[in-house]
């Protein structure tokens, strides 16, 4: 399986998104690089609205992801309560 990756600006909002990713994706690997945080996972990676909301302590809209997103790989599946990237191989 191929690896997917997603990267965020390193700031106070992304920190909670990354914490949520780690909680929902047991095998995700987090790399801290200058000014950015890059997360990799085998095959797919999911970001759940409820987990992020819990981490951040308020209602979080999945589309607010756009604000701190730097880049991603893979196909996207987005809905009201989750955002997922994956490869089909």
């Amino acid at each position, binding site marked *: 399986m191929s690896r997917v990756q997603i990267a965020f600006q390193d700031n106070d909002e992304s920190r909670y998104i990354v914490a949520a990713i780690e909680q929902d994706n047991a095998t995700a690997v987090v790399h801290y690089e200058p000014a950015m945080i890059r997360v990799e996972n085998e095959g797919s990676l999911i970001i759940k609205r409820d987990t992020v909301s819990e981490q951040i302590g308020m209602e979080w809209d999945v589309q607010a992801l756009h604000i701190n997103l730097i880049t991603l790989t893979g196909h*996207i599946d987005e*809905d009201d309560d989750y955002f997922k990237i994956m490869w089909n191989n």
Partner: protein
Amino acid sequence: MSPKKLNLKDKYKLLTRDLDWEFSYEDRKEAFPYEEFEGIKITDWDKWEDPFRLTMESYWKYQAEKEKKLYAIYDAFAQNNGQTNVTDARYVNALKLFLTGVSPGEHAAHLGFAFTGRQMGGIGARVAAQMQSIDELRHIQTQIHAMSHYNKFFDGFDEFNHMHDRLWYLSVPKSFFEDARTAGPFEFMIAIGFSFEYVLTNLLFVPFMSGAAYNGDMATVTFGFSAQSDEARHMTLGLEIIKFLLEQHEDNLPIVQKWLDKWLWRGYRLLTLVAMMMDYMLPQKVMSWQEAWELYFEDAGGALFKDLERYGIKMPDYTDTIKQEKEHLSHQAWWIFYQYTHAAAFHTWTPSAEEMDWLSEKYPDTFDKYYRPRWELAAEMEAKGERFYTTGLPQLCQTCQIPMAFTEMSDPTQVVYRESIYNDERFHFCSDPCKSIFDNEPEKYVNAWLPVHQILQGNCGGGGLDKVIEYYHLEDGVANLDFEGSPDAERWKDWKGVA
């Protein structure tokens, strides 16, 4: 009872798909005149899936938020004299190359997506392309704003647009985007939307911007990452368009494959500038060009092509050449600029002893063997007051317009020369892929505005190099030549209190 809140899918459907209408009294073909002339077959635009499902309303909301954050940082940067906090004033030369070479490309992308955002027959694709067109306009604007602060303190920024249209090395990015914009809408989407945005822009924006942060440049890293937050959406549009075209009709496969082969190579050649920025122009280095290439192209691109295999798409057959070139590219590129810096709008230098050690470590198979001796000799000559310049004009590749300086990978001391005869005229190329791109569309590439030919024909100020430099709006001894001894270097020493 309050009205039920719409979910994302319904909202997207109502606020995007429903913006379209049926053509009842006008001919649809006349409304979308370019949709068929490239040979692409579309059977059903409704099959278009926009994975981000961003409506115009949310688009404006999030974009406004991004801008507010960005401009707050610009203000802070200017108020705190952020330009004095960069690691070393040599760094600023990478920004000059960025503003003159990359930012006008944002504007070209803006125009190109405005075209496809009008010409594609499907509403979903059209709305996504229109949003991207607006994003690209935002990118050039925010870049000009960020650089306007540097322009107060450094030379080489002020005439970026004039220079983009004239300078020899800037014809490389300029002709790249013009080539894409003079293609049909679907080729443009594969060229810029897929090949450039999906496969290649990460290499431009991610490691380089991370490098800006590492070099104390808060303004650049912020516009870079702010632009990049739009880029994730652009990449998705690029991936969607290629999947869509391949799923629509099997006859699209050979056309799309040919475009891919062409544009991945065109984009890769363009990134030569980035390779050099990363390895030679960042005083504080983040990762080497080779490492960035492996992470963002070989790894991420490899997974992508594995996914596209199901449609019959193949990795271009020059990928092996690229794999070998990654250990040579930046060194050969910086050498070109070092020789011709008298006609460039930024400064060059020979790498310091520590920088050369870093390069040896990152390029163990090539740097000490081929490039270190050259830089050591150049530094030696400089010390003796015999700084080496090439005064003749280089031969340019008819396709990518880069001076012929890339070498054979079987013998890295031998420059590649390829040629084709078309209408009894001989044309020259830097590589096999550049030659085959020309051979596929000679009637297009014979029209290339090659700076060297234009100089020799007297169309760039006429006369000698002094006239050419004037035509470029370069004042000799100000924005050109080596960093050492430049007005930039003098000001920097002044600020830092070094004699």
